[in-house]
């Protein structure tokens, strides 16, 4: 860990908050992608079985 001196709080909070936001954005995007893909497959399957 580098010695961040008196600005440690500012630097660390910047990194923690930014990384949290980036990870949250990725997780939300991937989860919604999977959810919508599964739901569409289900609807398409239902449509085919109904003719």
């Amino acid at each position, binding site marked *: 860990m*580098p*010695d*961040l*001196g*008196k*600005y*440690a709080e*500012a*630097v660390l*909070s*910047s*990194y923690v*908050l*930014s990384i949290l*936001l*980036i990870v949250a*954005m*990725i997780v939300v*995007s*991937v989860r*919604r*992608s999977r959810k*919508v*893909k599964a*739901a*569409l497959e289900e*609807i*398409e399957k*239902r*449509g085919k079985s109904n003719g």
Partner: protein
Amino acid sequence: MGSIWEYANPKKFIATTDRLLPWVSALALVALVGGLIWGFFFTPDDYKQGSTVKIIYLHVPSALMAINAWMMMLVASLIWIVRRHHVSALAARAAAPIGAVMTLIALITGAIWGQPMWGTWWEWDPRLTSFLILFLFYLGYMALWAAIENDDTAADLTSILCLVGSVFAILSRYAVNFWNQGLHQGSSVMRAGAMMGDTEERVSNVYAVPLFVCIAGFILLFIALVFLRTQTEIRARRMRALLARERMN
């Protein structure tokens, strides 16, 4: 070689981006993690800013992407207005939350850096203010998409909003040059002269090289997320159409 408009076909877009997505995502991960580790652990403190200089590895790339995301949305919106390709309207919709998060990161890291360096979290400086307005435009753009049920109407109205918001995206980028006042400094990294090393304000390579790696990482992350989220929007649109057809039968 095929025309770029082939990718306006949703199936073609999904097939192509499916092939590209793992590569772009892997490159984004390597550049982003590598750049941030390099910047955080292996760069020296600045003689004026101390260790807060490490915040540039988040602040500069996110601010850059906040503006570039809106510019990408502007191009996609214009394509929708002129050519009525659904994929372009959906790509603009997909990019908006990413741009909003980038703007938020730029605002947060700027405030955290500003407190010890300027002695204030916030100042109604031209660049800061135009960035805040850009963030509000992102929120308004997303809210408008969510509020309108008809996809084509939503695409029309959000495209117009995007055109209006572009003024603030451009102002965010050039506010320092236009007004030449306020606390925020002008560009010292991307300026052509600085890149050639002929100005006194040039950022040292010790900081600039990892910064460029981080910028590449943010750009690649944006591309990967736009691919993924546009695929999702295309599928969601098809899902809504199929459900509407089911209800009719």
